[in-house]
């Protein structure tokens, strides 16, 4: 297999063609001669943002049902037709999108295109499949609450920061109650609304003939006019100042406290997005980051600690997260707040910034390695509306960031320690005596339906 794009001394981004179809479709085509694998990604803007109030999870469930049969094939027949080709189809809903990815050997796409067309234009939305899929989604959430708590911090944090009534505060997958309230009829309506969306984003990666694929896509996505054409937006946030600082999710018997520290950051229009990546690589985005070093390497408190952020169309969250045995949870939270406080006030030591810079520059070649990675990269590029020219200056921009610039970016994008909210999952009885010094806490049982107390 040939290496794609040779970065490094002669850095060159993967070559792709970008074009627009009438009706608001944007395409990115990236041919990779010789690649055995082809990936087609279709993204519609909307997602959980379009979930009606109290019916969280509708878009996510709609996406799942797209794979549950067409007029010509029931769910099993459809799966069998795709899998027999050695291909696979993933459907997903996110906060702001609904999407499908098809991956398979390039040579089977001739037989895959008609299946894609059926799924988009004649989905079955069978009532029995709806009832089954919805029940499985509800029971899977119940089962997840018994398992490893790490994956459950994000939905609790979303609710605690945005308020469960806000479209960014309810879980994308919905919860036990909201899923149960969704009517079957909402599936088709949700899909029609997405399909008519003002922006459909498509990427294709693999060994293909661009002219032929463009033609297939034109036929596939040709939409009749007159439908609803808008991209949904999140409403403003209700005031949250009156809430206690911490949310403690009680799971009796848990031997560790799993914690999340953060608040509202910035949206995708944030101009210094390259520099923000560097700031997080230094703060919590790699093994030698400040937070992992303080908690794991220096003190042996945890298996791992990291920081993160997202850049959606509405301001996303910035956070630090880790877990440690119950006895040391409060100390680990305090140590994390200390690290954040030091970076807020003094910025990053030059050596750390340099090390993070070298790490990101070296890792860049691993971003564009597989078809799946390239498809994801193109999807982000299209969704964020960025020009590829911005990526061309990536290394120069990393080089140009000074310690003071890094501090400023952290200040702009991550609340100061005293303004951060806290979410902890663990044994409340054993944790509470130690957590008092960190502020007021609201206690909520994990066994309760949903992800935290209702907050309007």
């Amino acid at each position, binding site marked *: 297999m040939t290496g794609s794009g040779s970065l490094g001394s002669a850095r060159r981004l993967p070559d792709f063609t970008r074009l627009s179809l009438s009706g608001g479709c944007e395409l990115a085509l990236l041919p990779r001669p010789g690649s055995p694998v082809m990936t087609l990604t279709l993204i519609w803007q909307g997602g959980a943002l379009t979930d009606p109030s109290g019916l969280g999870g509708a878009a996510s469930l709609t996406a799942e049902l797209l794979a549950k049969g067409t007029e010509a094939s029931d769910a099993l027949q459809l799966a069998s037709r795709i899998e027999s080709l050695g291909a696979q189809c993933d459907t997903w809903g996110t906060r702001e999108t609904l999407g499908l990815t098809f991956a398979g050997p*390039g040579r089977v796409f001739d037989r895959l295109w008609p299946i894609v067309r059926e799924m988009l234009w004649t989905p079955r939305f069978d009532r029995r499949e709806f009832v089954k899929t919805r029940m499985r989604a509800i*029971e899977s959430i119940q*089962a997840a609450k018994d398992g*490893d708590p790490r994956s459950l911090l994000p939905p609790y944090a979303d609710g605690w920061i945005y308020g469960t009534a806000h479209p960014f505060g309810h879980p994308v997958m919905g919860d036990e109650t909201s899923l149960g309230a969704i009517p079957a009829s909402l599936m088709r309506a949700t899909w029609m609304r997405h399909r008519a969306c003002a922006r459909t984003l498509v990427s294709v990666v693999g060994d293909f003939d661009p002219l032929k694929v463009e033609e297939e896509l034109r036929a596939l996505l040709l939409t009749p006019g007159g439908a609803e054409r808008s991209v949904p937006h999140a409403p403003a946030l209700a005031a949250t100042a009156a809430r206690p600082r911490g949310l403690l999710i009680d799971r009796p018997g848990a031997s560790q406290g799993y914690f999340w520290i953060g608040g509202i950051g910035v949206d995708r229009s944030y101009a210094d997005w390259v520099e923000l990546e560097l700031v997080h690589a230094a703060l919590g985005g790699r093994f*030698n980051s400040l937070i992992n070093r303080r908690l794991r390497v220096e003190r042996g408190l945890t298996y791992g600690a990291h920081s993160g952020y997202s850049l959606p169309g509405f301001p996303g969250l910035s956070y630090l997260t880790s877990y440690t045995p119950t006895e040391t949870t409060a100390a680990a939270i305090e140590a994390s707040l200390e690290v954040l406080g030091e970076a807020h006030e003094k910025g990053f030591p030059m050596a750390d910034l340099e090390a993070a810079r070298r790490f990101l520059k070296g890792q860049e070649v691993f971003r564009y390695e597989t078809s799946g990675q390239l498809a994801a990269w193109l999807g982000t590029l299209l969704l964020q509306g960025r020009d590829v020219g911005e990526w061309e200056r990536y290394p120069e921009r990393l080089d140009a960031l000074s310690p003071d610039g890094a501090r400023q970016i952290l200040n702009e994008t991550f609340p100061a320690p005293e303004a951060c909210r806290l979410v902890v999952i663990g044994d409340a009885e054993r944790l509470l005596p130690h957590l008092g010094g960190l502020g007021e806490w609201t206690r909520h049982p994990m066994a309760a339906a949903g992800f935290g107390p209702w907050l309007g």
Partner: protein
Amino acid sequence: MSQASGVTAPAHPPGLEPAPGTVPSPLIYRRFDDGLETILWPDRGNPRAALYVVYTVGSRLELPRPTGLAHFLEHMMFNGSTGFPDDAFDRILEDLGGSNNAYTSEEVTVYQDLVPAGAIGRVLELEADRRQNLLIDPMRVERERGVILSERHASIDNDPVARFLEDVQSVACAGTSYASPVIGWRDDILRIDARLLREFYAEHYQSGRVALVGVGGIDPDDWHRLIEAHWRSAPGRVVPEALACRGPHASFGERRIAGRGELVAPYLVMGFPAPQASDPGALPHELLWTLLVGGVASRLYATLIEGKSLALDLGTFRVGRIVPGRMFLGVTVSPRRRVATVERLIRVELERIAEQGPTEAERGRVQNQCLAAHAYRLESVAHRAELLGRALVIQRDPGALAEYPLRLGAVTCEDIRMAARAAFGSGGWTVGTLHPEGATGSGGSR
């Protein structure tokens, strides 16, 4: 002094040609007199390189010392050697623009380094130094113990299914060195000390148990020169094969274990005999399990999830590959359903496949699925290194990777039926059921 040989790729049968570029040809293999093995898959112009250092050292070598020793040592490998003290390994690697990780299983410990291609020399140097000159500082052992306990809490102690699976493995593999969890029992993690770690390191981290696997933009001449410079300057020694480590014994009939836990969804796990990776039956066995659980159209997925809504999720995991081992099927049962119903339906499906084998259409589907999955994995240097390491160390057949499409195409329906008879027809099963606290009878709740 050393034997060198090229492993060449075979021709491919019509209809199953992999697309260009997927065949590792030729692979450059060498075995030195101290037992060190090296294998390179060069890929000119690739700006990436993967170095996987595979130690044939796993938890099965721990007895009679405390469990968890091999995994603890894996953690200590990031805590300083004489040439690169403290956390220099991680710092230097990230400075090179690289990333790294490691894992330990019952049979191997694998150190995974991913770097821009130009940095391969420095990585070979770092890896050689910690193979030869690891410092095991008692202070750092204490700190690392906290990290490992936190890892154990996160991955096992706070997940009732994971806790139950430890019990199931100890029952399924009773009396063998495969019976204990790789991370170790909590009490054992507490008593491991620097002395035990040093002994284990000195005994097992010898070049006779090391395979260096390189993939990506690495020049073959550079590769050999760097290995001579860093790995051959202080050769280790050949170590005896781990003959004492047998896989799980064939047992009479079935072993059953039932438990109760704080959970909503009951869990069912069934373990079956599985051939060792070097057995000719291993590939039909892989196709058999793809046919049972690989994808929505697979038999068990279609029956249990898509058809009857009895289960929320299902998956498999494997214990023992170098030796004949066990394949485990795990099923998260719907809280509204009974475990017994699910177990009965699975038994019907297993009996059916063992008696009748697959249809031609099914065989074609799973072959296409496996071939496509193979192509996806070969896209990244990391996966290529992982697969090449397994082929060399676990399968003892580095050519298996290149021949995979050919061998896959040769598997018949009858081969798959025979694999099913071997797995399901001759006892040696282990069945574990985990029920919600307070549920009645042997079934689920509600």
